[in-house]
């Protein structure tokens, strides 16, 4: 499928209650933001999250980035 070549990794952050830390809870691979949101809400439904966001990993702006150990 052509779409499979266009899949991107989205990082998912969520907090259980207001005031909690926004925590990285996992990732999904999706073709676009709309599907990433749907996949995230169905895949990570173990909590009744107060807040959940998906971030395209390529959009992250690194302040410090470690060198990978075996790169």
């Amino acid at each position, binding site marked *: *499928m*052509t779409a*499979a070549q266009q899949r991107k990794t989205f990082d998912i952050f969520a907090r259980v209650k207001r005031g909690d830390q926004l925590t990285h809870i996992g990732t*999904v691979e999706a*073709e676009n933001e709309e*599907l990433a949101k*749907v*996949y995230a*809400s*169905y895949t990570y439904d173990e909590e009744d999250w107060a807040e959940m966001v998906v971030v395209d990993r390529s959009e992250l702006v690194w302040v410090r980035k470690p060198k990978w150990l075996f790169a």
Partner: protein
Amino acid sequence: MESMQPSVHSLVELLETIADNKYVLGDRLVEVGVSGPNLEATLAAIAMAQGELGHARLLYNWCFDLRGVKGKKPEIYGQSGKALASAVNVHNWITLIAALYTVNTAIDAVLQSALQANHPAVVSKIQKLVREQQDHIVYAKNWAQQLIHDQGAVPHRFRQALNAAANEAAAWLKDVEDKKELQQEGYLPNGVQLVERLQQELKAVAAEPFVQLK
């Protein structure tokens, strides 16, 4: 069983048609969705199946209440025969997405119109269902857009499946539009344009008109 007014009878028939379609889609999402093209799509399909079956149960139970069934609600062992053929005949990913998209979009057209009509007996029952259904439509719409821009025979086969499902859904919506008692009782707004609404929504997938009612 109590005798029903024609408007309530039509409402029960409408709700049962929606419930049947959701029951069948829930079943097909498990049967076919479990072999989805990737892990995320598969997990979402199984989760949505639970959602569709939950919506079906809610609507069947509402129909029992409208029919005056007292006490414990009967178990549901199958649809009542009103589900659209395009949902019943889902057998692969292409027909699943075509049916999920068109049937849920058609159901959404009916339920959004019912919310507009603002009948107190209806609004409180369907608000949550309509909200939950949006994710199912977003999922199906995005997969429809992918299939229509895929390679090889996939786009052609998907167009065929979508056209068949859209025509069948439009015929059902036309039938609902023609039931004037639903509008007279305030379950749907006067002069409701359900087919037009479906056509507009389907343009999100392809520009050409899919629905050509005879």
